[in-house]
């Protein structure tokens, strides 16, 4: 018995001639999960939203059949949709920090569907139901948690609370749109377990993700979406065993990418960290952000730092860059003191170490064009062009764009007019403008789709090969760290719990946390 049946669904957004969802058909039975995988812009989210009547305003939704929990959902009026939403279909979206109202307590948020759909329920009964729900999604100490605000919960608990609120009015269908994307790997695994339990208890689950590894763990059927169409819809096992469509094969390849790191050589040590430590806050509430981090980075090599958010990775990055002074320990660049000298002496050598951020959109001046962004860095680069003329700066900017496999048609664009992948390439080009010997990459691909991730990683690897650049590569994602790093540091709560050559670390992890990370990654 299908809870959801969709036949030939088409969605056309206002002001667009082409359909974002173009002839999609599927059905989900109770206790089953359909996974939709694809890159951003493929139409996954819009497909999910059309099952709950939340397509963007003005969108035209048509279908030969659109049955949601026994209701023909074609041409429903807004009040009719409201009766359906929450009560028959629940929605869980990405990152509960922004998907829960940040100004309301968790209890109020979870209770809202009950207030809407069961207005006769008394105050005390409602409170009881909320506690029950929090308990159901395995939130410890629910009585305390209901009084908390979303920002006071960890990412995992927040996501659980969001799931609890979606389940409050007992819907038959749950639409989970990238439910784990903003979470750390180990927390991801826990949420997956929770979703699986819900599915087994009879919920029909529509799981949307760009991450094939998450889909694989939950979905009974998998649909691969590209440009508004399902290019492939198969039982999960068949899809992995025998992918039919070339795009599916591409996705599978991107998910399992792990190039063996190049053999180590004995280049000069360009960057050395010695026993770095940094604490924040005052005596009582002191937070050891980083405690005792040491490593050496050789030319042409990559040191990977992996750990969950809050483990101190980015603090290390800032100390390496010299934008944060360590409380203890030292950073040496090319064998000379770096972190303990005054900024005035450091400034002349700043070009030698450059950074790439996760969110390059906010790392660019939103008003500046690509040419201006690059020109600024080029003008600062005294070694080659100095502050010379405009035309030469432009030529150099084009040269840099070619280096990162972009062409000069982007010179006039501003940051928000670039795709995520293009933006990250421009960020790399800007970093390269100063001709650094060291590149610090702080989660450089975390905001990108899987196949774009692979392209950017490939670019970084090839740049390293051709220029002998040394890299510090920071990520919460073991897979991307693995793809580039020769040596790996595993950080937890500001401390390096394990450190060593990548191959050895993956072969025989010593620390339980490393094993946990690897396990979370392997089940993926």
């Amino acid at each position: 018995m299908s809870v959801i049946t969709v036949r030939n669904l088409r969605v056309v957004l206002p002001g667009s001639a082409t359909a974002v969802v173009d002839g999609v058909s599927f059905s989900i039975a109770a206790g089953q999960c359909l996974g939709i995988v694809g890159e951003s812009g493929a139409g996954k989210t819009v497909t999910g939203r059309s099952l709950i009547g939340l397509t963007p305003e003005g969108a035209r939704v048509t279908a030969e059949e659109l049955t949601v929990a026994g209701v023909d959902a074609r041409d429903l009026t807004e009040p009719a949709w409201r009766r359906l939403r929450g009560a028959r279909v629940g929605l869980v979206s990405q990152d509960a920090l922004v998907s829960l109202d940040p100004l309301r307590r968790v209890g109020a948020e979870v209770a809202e569907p009950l207030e809407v759909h069961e207005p006769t329920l008394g105050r005390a009964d409602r409170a009881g139901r909320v506690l029950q729900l929090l308990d159901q999604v395995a939130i410890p100490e629910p009585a305390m948690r209901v009084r908390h605000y979303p920002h006071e919960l960890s990412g995992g608990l927040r996501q659980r609370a969001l799931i609890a609120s979606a389940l409050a009015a007992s819907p038959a269908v749950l639409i989970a749109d990238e439910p784990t994307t903003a979470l750390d790997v180990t927390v991801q695994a826990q949420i997956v377990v929770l979703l699986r339990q819900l599915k087994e208890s009879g919920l029909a689950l529509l799981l949307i993700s760009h991450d094939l590894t998450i889909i694989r763990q939950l979905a009974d059927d998998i649909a691969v979406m590209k440009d508004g169409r399902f290019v492939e819809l198969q039982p999960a096992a068949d899809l992995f065993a025998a992918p039919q469509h070339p795009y599916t094969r591409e996705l599978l390849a991107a998910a399992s990418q792990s190039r063996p790191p190049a053999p180590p050589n004995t280049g000069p040590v360009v960057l050395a960290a010695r026993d770095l430590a940094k604490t924040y806050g005052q005596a009582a509430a002191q937070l050891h952000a980083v405690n005792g981090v040491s490593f050496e980075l050789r030319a042409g090599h990559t040191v990977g730092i992996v750990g969950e958010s809050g483990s101190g990775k980015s603090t290390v990055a800032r100390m390496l860059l010299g934008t944060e002074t360590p409380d203890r320990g030292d950073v040496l660049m090319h064998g000379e003191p770096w972190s303990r000298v005054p900024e005035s002496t450091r400034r002349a050598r700043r070009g030698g170490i450059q950074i790439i951020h996760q969110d390059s959109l906010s790392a660019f001046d939103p008003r500046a064009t690509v040419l201006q962004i690059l020109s600024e860095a080029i003008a600062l680069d005294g070694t080659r062009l100095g502050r010379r003329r405009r035309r030469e700066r432009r030529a150099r900017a084009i040269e840099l764009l070619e280096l990162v496999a972009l062409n000069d048609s982007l010179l006039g664009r501003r940051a928000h007019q670039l795709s995520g992948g293009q933006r990250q390439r421009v960020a790399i080009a800007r970093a390269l403008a100063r001709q650094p010997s060291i590149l610090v990459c702080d989660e450089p691909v975390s905001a990108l789709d899987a196949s774009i991730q692979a392209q950017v990683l490939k670019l970084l690897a090839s740049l390293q090969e051709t220029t002998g650049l040394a890299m510090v590569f920071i990520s919460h994602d073991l897979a991307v760290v693995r793809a580039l790093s020769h040596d790996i540091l595993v950080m937890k709560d500001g401390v390096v719990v394990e450190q060593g050559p990548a191959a050895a670390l993956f072969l025989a992890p010593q620390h339980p946390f490393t094993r946990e990370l690897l396990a979370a990654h392997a089940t993926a």
Partner: protein
Amino acid sequence: MVLVVWGAATLGFFALRLIPGDPVNVLIGLGNVSTQVRDQIREDWGLADPLLVQYLGYLGRLVQGDLGTSYRRQQPVADVIGQQLVPTVQLMALAVVFALLLALGSALIGRGRRTAPLAGLLELVAVSSPTFWIGLVLISVFGFGLGWFPVVATVGFGALLLPAATLAIPVAGIISQVLRQGLDDAAALPFVDTVRARGASHTRLVVRHTLRHAAASSITLTGYMVGSLLGGSVLVETVFARPGLGRVALNAIVDRDVPVVLGIIVLAAVAFSVINLLVDLVADRIDPRLETKQAYA
């Protein structure tokens, strides 16, 4: 807060000394007196002392709550201000209520496709109209034209309505603009989808969710605007010929009655500090995230 009041008193004290002219002239009024008498007056009022001594003396008295004595009226400044405080506070309080109601109404109604441009236009008119002009329009329409409200009466609630409305309208325009902007911003936040996915109606979404976000973003400005009402009351009290602090301030400045001017400056500083404190407390209540942010700062 003490720092703000001290800063205001100090700046005010020295700035007022820069005004050319002899305070003794103010004390004497128009009469003609001998140099001897002048010196005597100077001695009595402590005006002969070096500036620093005068300043420290003033501060010392200020700490004890003594604002000095008016040159012109020959009575304690605290009394001069106290007598006129009540009408002005009444006026300001009612104006605040009006401003908030008007702003809330226009922000809530003015968000439809058709009403939004209209609300925008009204706000623009409200913000850019000079206070005295609004006052005159209100007087001629409601006072003379319709005869609903007394024009020159100074007692009773009816007499308060027009001046308060005059004071409130430009403020309401600004707050409404910010509030509408806040509502629009909040409506674009991701959690709105979650709320709608629960089956909540639009009204519920606004009342229970986005209005609070909008209030969080406009509360600081509202506090600032309330503080600025004190300045606005000068004009309104003049236009409506009402008694009040605004007129006291105006007359004191015209008369170069330095202690009174200083007293009003200090009072304004205190009022601003108290309002800001309240705003901070309210903002913490509205947006619990602020508390933790401060804890880290």
